[in-house]
């Protein structure tokens, strides 16, 4: 459950997005820009949080009344090992040092549903975090580091995010779409029986805007509450394609797992928020 520190939503004086060149970061810049919120986007080309003195340089760019959105992280495609985790933690250390020095009005930390592991099929914010890999462990550790910041802190845990401009190629709508365009074929693991929740990137940004305007704090999963099989996702991608697409199944190598998000807390926090349907989201993606 999250709490809103502002009873009446209002725009912040400025939003700073750390990790602004990434898939979600870019969507946030668009979202905040579209409603006239002053926004400063910073990426590793502006300040490399892995470098010496990065905290000092970042602090110099921040103001005490900023709302800061932290997305910068080395994602699993950059490595899944110990070294990557340590670098990510070092980045967060620099980031927290900057906030300790400069202060902020509100911090939104973008974590990941990887903190839950694959144990429970049904997930709420009350589900115990039990990461099963170093990536999830890293995010959980960074969540705890974020909570040390002296300001209202919101932790967002997005599930599988899709949309135009995805810089990754994880199994799901984005990879399926590229594969359909390039090869006219989508290859599923097994028969694609697993169910997952896919959230459109602009919906993530719209929800973040809501949370920023209410100065929300706590933990919130970012998911639609509707889970779909990968088979169905492939069919939706195929139906949206401009050429015939073959859906190919493969021998199953790992057991089927499912994931369902109970988004009741999200509905309570933002009762009138609406997610885009998966079919509409997939049909609307053009790159």
């Amino acid at each position: 459950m999250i709490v809103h520190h502002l009873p009446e939503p209002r725009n912040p004086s400025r939003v700073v997005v750390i990790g602004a060149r990434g898939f979600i970061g870019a969507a946030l810049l668009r979202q905040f820009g579209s409603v006239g919120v002053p926004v400063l986007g910073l990426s590793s080309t502006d300040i490399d949080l892995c470098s010496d003195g990065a905290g000092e340089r970042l602090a110099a760019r921040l103001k005490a009344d900023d709302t800061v959105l932290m997305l910068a992280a080395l994602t699993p495609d950059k490595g899944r090992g110990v070294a990557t985790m340590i670098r990510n933690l070092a980045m967060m250390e620099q980031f927290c040092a900057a906030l300790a020095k400069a202060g902020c009005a509100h911090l939104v930390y973008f974590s990941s549903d990887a903190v839950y592991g694959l144990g429970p099929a049904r997930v709420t914010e009350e589900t115990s975090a039990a990461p099963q890999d170093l990536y999830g462990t890293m995010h959980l550790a960074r969540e705890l580091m974020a909570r040390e910041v002296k300001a209202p802190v919101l932790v967002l845990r997005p599930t599988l995010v899709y949309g135009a401009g995805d810089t990754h190629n994880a199994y799901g709508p984005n990879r399926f779409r590229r594969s359909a365009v390039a090869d006219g074929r989508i290859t599923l693991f097994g028969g694609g029986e697993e169910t997952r929740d896919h959230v459109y990137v602009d919906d993530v940004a719209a929800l973040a805007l809501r949370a920023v305007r209410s100065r929300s704090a706590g933990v919130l999963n970012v998911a639609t509450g509707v889970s779909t099989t990968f088979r169905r996702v492939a069919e939706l991608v195929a139906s949206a394609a401009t050429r015939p697409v073959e859906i190919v199944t493969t021998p199953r190598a790992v057991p089927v797992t499912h994931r369902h998000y109970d988004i009741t807390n999200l509905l309570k926090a933002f009762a009138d928020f609406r997610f885009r349907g998966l079919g509409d989201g997939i049909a609307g993606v053009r790159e």
Partner: protein
Amino acid sequence: MKPTIGFAGMTHLGLVSGVSASEKGFRVVCFDPDPARIGQLAQARLPVSEPQLDDLVAKNASRLSFTALPADLASCDVIYVAPDVATDDQGASDLGTINALLEVVFDAARADAVIVVLSQVPPGFTRGKQRPGRLLYYQVETLIFGRAVERALYPERYILGCADPSQPLPAPFRTFLEAHGCPLLPMRYESAELAKISINMCLVASVSTANTLAELCEKIGADWSEIVPALKLDRRIGQYSYLAPGLGIAGGNLERDLATVCSFADRLGTDAGVVRAWIANSRHRRDWALRTLHREVLSKIDDPVIAVLGLAYKQDTHSTKNSPSLALLSHLHPFRVRLFDPVVPASAAAHPRATPCASELEACDGADVLVVMTPWGQFGKLDPAAIGGKLRRKLLLDPYAVLKAGACRATGLRYFTLGVEG
């Protein structure tokens, strides 16, 4: 000669128990240290709503006396200490009131009077209050909101916590209990205190099972209402078992016992995993209406108007403690709502966009959807066609199946209830 019975603490439990004792022909002294409360009661203005209660107060006025003077308890042979024990949001009991009241009763009662703790207290409480030379007992109360008088007049059994269960009960106490014609089960204090909790845990287990499987029914095309009769004919489950799906556990008493078991388990190292699962399931099901509303209305209709019938936590009561209706309304502040409850005023919802309504159909007038959040009997008498005629969109959420699904659907209403796919 019949003994005189005293009841200390004139909130729900004490008042209903005292009035019911007078109906059994006993002279009853109703004591409360709050003179204002006694003043109201003396004018037959009752702070609680229960079937039969007002009538019995009038009928037995000659045997009932209300007093704020502890000295008046000196005429009593048996004194029940029966204040409602308040709980916090976590279900933890506030024992301050009963502790204070017990002190008053100990001071005021005759040395030979039997003092009986009737309130819901945690195991160990009564033994901790025992004093040399005093006759102290604990008695399990089985008050059910909306059926409190009936339960007090016709109990299934009396569970009695005793300092020494092998000793005979004092004559006045036995006379009063035997007037109710039910089995007496004396046992040690701690067993009786835990028996009360055990009863409630069995009820919660049944309700949680019903809720868990009803939700599954909603997803796989089964109908829980078809399954229930089969279960009730099973002797191991029984015809009176709690198998109606609901919107989680409410009212405060069951939550108190859940919290008590978890607290004891944590302190003593026993396993309470299943109890915590019941609590989680209860919280999950409480939000059925919110999720269904979102899926069917809020995610599809701009600026919808929502009619809500029922604010009390259950029918035939004024209580809104942990009311699913108020919980739902607390999450609907962005939307216009139209509210009606036969007893509870709309102001109890503290909703910024609420319109109080004088009747069920007035609440439906111009709404996009009707949600029946309390199963008041009078709601079941509503004409589905009349409801449909008032609603802008023909949507009806009726979690407790107060209305007949078939009749509603026959009039063109889209009908959603617990335990079956909408």
